[in-house]
């Protein structure tokens, strides 16, 4: 096994009702210091984590949406969203934030690494990962 592992962070919970979404994100940020291949998967209520237009000012909780937008700078290369979960919730890709990515060495750029994938692809991507973090 090479030193580079494929890490997948699996997000299946809504934000704010519990802290799991936010503390999971903290792991991703810290993990950036380690050179692994990192992807995030959003399924079930986890897809709500990426919905645009959250405003926590009245609920007095920390709004961590801006942090998702910076994930490209933290070594996250792929953010996948389960299509069936999205559709069941009456949402489309247009309802989700976009996250840009740039490789500073090769200057390769991607406008948006958030990608909606079908269930078969979710299964395949999870199976391909070396480690799946659950929160």
């Amino acid at each position, binding site marked *: 096994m090479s030193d580079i592992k494929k890490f997948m962070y699996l997000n299946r919970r809504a934000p*704010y009702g519990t802290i799991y979404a936010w503390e999971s994100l903290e792991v991703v940020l810290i993990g950036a210091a380690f050179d692994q291949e990192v992807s995030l998967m959003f399924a079930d*209520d986890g897809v709500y984590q990426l919905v645009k237009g959250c405003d926590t000012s009245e609920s007095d909780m920390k709004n961590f949406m801006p942090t998702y937008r910076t994930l490209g700078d933290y070594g996250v290369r792929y953010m996948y969203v389960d299509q069936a979960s999205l559709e069941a919730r009456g949402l489309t890709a247009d309802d989700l934030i976009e996250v840009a990515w740039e490789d500073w060495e090769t200057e390769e750029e991607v406008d948006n690494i958030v990608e909606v994938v079908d269930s078969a692809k979710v299964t395949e991507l999870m199976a391909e990962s070396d480690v799946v973090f659950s929160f």
Partner: protein
Amino acid sequence: MADLFTVNKSPFEKNSLENAIKFSTEGASILLIEDGVYGASKGTACESMITGAAGKKFYALKSDLKARGIADDRLIDGVEVVDYAGFVELVCSTDKTQAWL
């Protein structure tokens, strides 16, 4: 007056909303709070839980809707938005409050 039921779980994750509706009487008030407010969204697979519930009145907590990016135009018709003062008012104007966790 009838009772107030609070529901704080996403209807996609747990059956709390479904059962709060099932076990409440005609005229009951059901207040969606925390992740429960996702149940108030139009066009979801769970929409019919609320649109199909006759004789119950639904409310959703404003600050929780805002935190989750659920704009007013996405709410199921008839769901009334309340703030915390409205929550308190609902508790006081109904017979008792049951947390349907």
